């Protein structure tokens, strides 16, 4: 394989993996703590991208758009958690999953109503190119990778160094024991849901300049994000990062080797990993409800 093609493929895979990580981390935390499969995170991802587009059109700055996308996604996530999930946390996991899918579909409909069906372009905020081992790489893709690693460090610090983060980690192990200590677990749920929504919005905003923004964009990444969460292990942040980069590389390098592999190979990798380690790479056997 051509070295230049390989290097650009690896960087492409890392940047795609970074977006998957930002999106999957919310799903993983929501399942780990609240035992809900929060498909509506894909809506906040689309909202992040559309707000980035809209604010870029009005201010001329993609970065302002990304920040605005994070804020609006976080606010929508907060509203959804307060008005819908708070009432159904106690219900069966399939009930909450169907409810979240309903929210996603309704949200996609609202996006179509506001912005139309046509895909919309968002330009890259950084046009510069960097040279790595003789290969020209868009700096923006490197920035996306760096941002996702910074988010990983930030989330790690939050979960390990703050009392709220420690309570969330404890809740992932056993929520009933956390309640037994007098800790209001519903506040933890809300905090986690907002963090997930903001990160999904960030994923959408950062991804927007790399793709065309369209109403179905959340549904298009759905299988890959699921794969990332499952391969990494439910509730594991480190696992989510590692598996996001694995899936990104498999898609990117698979496409270089043989086009259809980009779609097929990640599923094969997921099946292989689950056969060897059914809990995922970093999944805990302790998860219970």
């Amino acid at each position, binding site marked *: 394989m051509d070295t230049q093609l390989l290097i650009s493929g690896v960087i492409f895979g890392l940047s795609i993996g970074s977006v998957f990580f930002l999106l999957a981390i919310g799903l993983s935390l929501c399942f780990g703590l609240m035992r809900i499969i929060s498909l509506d995170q894909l809506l906040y991802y689309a909202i992040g991208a559309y707000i980035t587009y809209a604010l870029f059109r009005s201010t001329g700055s993609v970065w302002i758009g990304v920040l605005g996308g994070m804020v609006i996604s976080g606010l929508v996530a907060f509203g959804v958690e307060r008005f819908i999930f708070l009432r159904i946390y106690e219900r069966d996991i399939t009930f909450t999953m169907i409810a979240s899918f309903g929210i996603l579909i309704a949200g996609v409909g609202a996006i179509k109503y506001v912005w139309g069906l046509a895909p919309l372009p968002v330009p890259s905020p950084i046009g510069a190119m960097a040279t790595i081992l003789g290969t020209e790489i868009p700096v923006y893709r490197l920035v996306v990778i760096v941002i996702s690693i910074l988010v990983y460090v930030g989330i790690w610090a939050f979960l390990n160094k703050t009392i709220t983060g420690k309570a969330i980690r*404890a809740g992932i192990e056993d929520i009933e024991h956390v309640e*037994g200590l007098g800790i209001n677990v519903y506040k933890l749920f809300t905090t986690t849901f907002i963090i997930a929504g903001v990160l999904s919005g960030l994923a959408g905003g950062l991804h927007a300049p790399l793709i065309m923004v369209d109403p179905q964009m959340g549904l298009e990444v759905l299988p890959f994000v699921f794969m990332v969460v499952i391969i990494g292990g439910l509730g594991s942040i480190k696992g989510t990062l590692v598996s996001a980069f694995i899936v990104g590389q498999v898609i990117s390098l698979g496409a270089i080797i043989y086009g259809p592999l980009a779609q097929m190979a990640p599923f094969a990798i997921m099946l292989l990993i689950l056969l060897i380690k059914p809990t995922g790479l970093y999944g805990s056997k302790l998860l219970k409800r």
Partner: protein
Amino acid sequence: MPTDELLVVDDLNVAYGESKVLFDVSIHIRANEIVSCVGRNGAGKSTLLKTIGGFIKPTTGSIMFANTSLVGIKSYNIAKMGLKYIPQDKKVFSDLTVRENLELGSYATQDYNWDKVTEYFPKLKSLMERKAGYLSGGERQMLMIGRALLGDPQVLLVDEPTEGLAPSIVTQLQNVFLELSKKTALVIVEQNLSLVSAISERVYAVKEGRVVHEISDESDIKSNVCEQFL
């Protein structure tokens, strides 16, 4: 009914779906009293403690704690009010250190005076930085009781605390419970009758979801009258 009752459970009925588990259960606990509940596995003892702790909603009946009804109150608020449930599974937060486990115990009530914990369980002092998942069964039980003590609860609901523990640890826990009862009332579900007879001031015998006997005579408790209910 005496006026110094701290916790009064009256005509409590609990069901898991269609399956009824507790039938008209009535118990009462005074301040600084150790009350044990004995009975066979599946008699409903743990369900009783979980219901008092707010983890299970009763179908009918009342639970009064310091003249406040606990029915309908979330379990974390009940814990904050001073009534803490210590489950029998000895599940500590295994991914967190002993220190972090205690921090969570302090979080809700902002009581960071850990001296009272290490006073009862000095061993925890040397284990502060150890992940709780690596503790022995006895150490886990110490940690669970220790973190429940933070916030100075008025009642501790302790579910089978000595199950699977070495005799030396059981003796240590026995002394701790006696010491704790100077400040706190304890409701203990236990199958270890020697512990029950050594620490209990009253005993409720639970059979098939009903309280079938209340033993308050000290000589009856000491003479292992409860054995017939196991």
